[in-house]
């Protein structure tokens, strides 16, 4: 069993490496003069590498399932890696419909960021708590994730659309918001970079702090900036915290989560500023020339298509399957748990998107902005709701 788990981990790293390589090759295709990317050799190699990567990740999933005895969809690490895989799958499918190489150049890095993000959480195989022991775990979570993967593609095409479309000659509201989106992506990278560095350095700092009259301990893997309330550092040589976490941050792990957020923000900001200094212009403006050959109409089409595919899937997995399972496990199909509410909000949002597009003619740029916001809502539900607005779904 232990062997299988090791094989599984190796497969995941293999997939990660292959996606990275594929991204680089897709980067080469962008310079292709030949507009019909169908025939470009580098395009064929890139998609082949992507597919092999996908197969590797699928093997990770299956071997881990066998090793654990339950589908590996039960915590944040497992779920986020599956989401990364869903994005890759959605990309592969849409690639074969539309043959747009630039999609790979953006979709794969997004998938990579998500998988890397996942790997920062505890990755060992954990037992399944009683409430999750149901076949619906697989049906519900995999369908939702698949839907989110497809909707993720609409985010990617929307983003490419905006980078190409938004006028970068002048500073405007649009350029600013576009930079905000790119900056948020940098924060994710910041999270990965800071967590990874201190992990490699084996950094640890343990604090003691009082809870309801008892003494509890908390261990940081990053130097503590925000410490626990009235905490006492007990690890020698570690950095003491700069300030106490306000008590309205809920939950036992709240100080550590806040600390991680602060580190991500700091590292992300440094990286962003460095990038700006090197490029000497807005990131959006720097990428824009590379998208010369991209057909905006086609991007708009893919954005809409992926939402058209993703919305019914999301309804099925995120609302209907979720309701069926909730009815079986928690005796009610709907309970206004934060996660459920945010799934409903996501659904409302895409419903509004479809109505605006079909009945009010919101095409092109408006659609692209909405697609980006929609995916932001999905990520909010995955990350903030899980980690901050803890409810019934906080299994991470």
């Amino acid at each position: 069993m232990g062997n299988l788990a090791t094989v599984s981990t190796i497969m995941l790293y293999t997939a990660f490496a292959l996606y990275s390589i594929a991204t680089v090759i897709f980067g080469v295709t962008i310079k292709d003069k030949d507009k019909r990317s169908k025939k470009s050799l580098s395009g064929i190699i890139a998609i082949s590498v992507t597919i092999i990567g996908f197969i590797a990740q699928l093997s990770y999933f299956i071997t881990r399932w066998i090793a654990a005895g339950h589908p590996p969809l039960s915590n944040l690490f497992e779920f986020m890696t599956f989401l990364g895989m869903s994005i890759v799958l959605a990309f592969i499918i849409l690639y074969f419909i539309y043959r747009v190489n630039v999609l790979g150049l953006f979709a794969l890095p997004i998938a990579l960021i998500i998988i890397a993000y996942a790997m920062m959480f505890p990755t060992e195989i954990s037992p399944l708590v009683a409430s999750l022991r149901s076949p619906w775990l697989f049906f519900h979570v995999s369908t939702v994730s698949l839907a989110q993967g497809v909707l993720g593609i609409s985010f990617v095409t929307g983003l490419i659309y905006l980078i190409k479309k938004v006028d970068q000659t002048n500073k405007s509201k649009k350029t600013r918001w576009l930079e905000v989106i790119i900056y948020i992506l940098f924060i994710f990278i910041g999270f990965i970079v800071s967590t990874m560095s201190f992990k490699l350095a084996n950094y640890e700092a343990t604090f003691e702090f009082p809870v309801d009259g008892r003494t509890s301990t908390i261990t940081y893997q990053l130097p503590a900036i925000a410490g626990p309330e009235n905490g006492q550092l007990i690890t020698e040589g570690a950095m003491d915290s700069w300030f106490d976490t306000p008590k309205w941050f809920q939950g036992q792990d709240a100080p550590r989560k806040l600390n991680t957020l602060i580190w991500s923000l700091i590292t992300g900001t440094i990286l962003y500023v460095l990038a700006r200094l090197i490029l000497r212009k807005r990131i959006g403006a720097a990428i824009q020339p590379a998208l010369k050959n991209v057909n905006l109409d086609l991007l708009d089409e893919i954005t809409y298509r992926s939402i058209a595919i993703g919305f019914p899937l999301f309804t099925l997995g995120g609302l209907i399957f979720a309701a069926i399972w909730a009815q079986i496990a928690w005796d009610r199909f709907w309970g206004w748990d934060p996660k459920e509410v945010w799934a409903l909000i996501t659904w409302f949002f895409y419903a509004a998107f479809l109505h605006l597009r079909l009945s009010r003619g919101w095409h092109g740029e408006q659609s692209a902005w909405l697609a980006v916001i929609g995916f932001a809502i999905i990520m909010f539900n995955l990350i903030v709701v899980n980690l901050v607005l803890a409810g019934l779904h906080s299994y991470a």
Partner: protein
Amino acid sequence: MGKLKCECGHFNPTGTILCEACGKPIEGNQHLDGNDKKKLLNMRYDGSARRSITHNQSIIDKIWRFFSSVKVGVWLIVIALVASALGTIFPQEMYIPPNAPSRDPAIYYEAQYGILGKIYYQLGLHNVYSSWWYMLILALLGVSLVICSIDRFVPLYRALKMQKPKRHESFISRQRFYSKTDHISDEEIQQVVKRLQAKKYKIKSEDGHYFAEKGRFSRWGPYVNHIGLIIILLAALLRQTSFMYLDEYVWVREGELTVIPGTKNEFFIENKQFIIETYDENDERFKEALERTGGEVVKNYQTDVVIYRAKDSVVDSDTTLEKVVEGEIRMNHPLKFASYTLYQSGFQSNEFTSMSFKLYEINDADEQAIDVFTVDLMDPLPEYELDNGFRVELDQYFPDYILDDEGPRSETMYPRNPAFVFKVFPPDQEKPEISFLSIGQNIDATGENNYKLGLVDFNTHYVSGLTVRRDYTLPLFGLGAAIFMIGVIQGMYWQHRRVWLHRKGESLLLAAHTNKNWFGLKKDITEAIEDTKINMVIDQEELN
């Protein structure tokens, strides 16, 4: 203003934008869809007359018109979205943790979240999803759903039914996909038509003009899914009634037999035993994770129960019970009987079943027991006869003992913290000796006792918390959800594609329209006109 007669001879309803039959833009109505000054036609609802666009409006018409606007519908969606989001800032009242210092929302929110919490509570956001205004938003969304659908379905249906193969030239040339080719032979047109037919297009012709259409049923998708949503809202409405929906909770002790609330005294439940299973700490697979979290992980919560039905119609404490079903209730595996379902939803492990005491001489250093007796804490006896002529009377029993200003008393009827006042009658003594016993206390009231009672053993039991549900609305919700899924798949995964081959003397005007996936339509046309001289359609929208 009566019906509008088009030059093709067709009578259109008031407010029509494009003639139902030939598609010619109707003069004077183009402002309705913003077609003025635009090259391309707005093909939304195929230019049919929305029912709300009428003159001579009464109040009813005005209300109707208001709700028939998609703009209003989208605004309602946005408002519902924002209101839903507001409710997740802090936990809702029902999710206030059970171990909170005060579960009273008036205190909890301010104590926990300060001034923001207080505002949150005062705005009523702690209970937003059952507030009247949230329900009103959803209800208005329902109204919008019904009226928008009625308002658009009939005209669209008419327009798609009335359309003729022969279209007005201005309709053709103002489509997004359009091309004109001179000198095209009938054979070539026939070939294209045949290829389209092979692609499952339905072909109609009139005076040498051809019209190919595919996937029209996908246009009904939105209306089908809206019907699904209306059914879901209807189900939610019915769920408000106690007949359709029952929600009760029952705590059953191990070994206890009690009535199942909400079943009108018809059904009873007996808790045979309650089980908690945890994962084996030495399980190779999970060793690492269990070590990190350092806690036990529960694998299973289960109550083994027997369900009985009362034979008498009168509510009677001596009613005869007949067994209906014996089974287990586990998380994710509820138990169903009659129209009811029982769910495992909680447990308590803070109750004692029985306690055993020994009586011994106070001076005995070995505390040798004279005798041992056991008190059933759910139903204690008033007296216990012991060996050697000793007798113990249970004078006072407090199952859930506390001491307040007025002396000792019980907080509940459940043996969570039992306390006793015993009277010990030794064989050789007239006056009894009085002892007070509770957990951690053993008090000799007079200080003159010769005998002492001591706790030697105890048993505990679990209390299982079960939810009782009867929900006749579930099939209706299921039906609504199924119809919604059918509708949304019908509308999203299929496309309505139309191709017009319009003869104009020697030349051919080729135009095409689809409600989505223009890329696919382009592919269809490319393949259909392959090896002919017909020019490929040009995308006239030119977003770039």
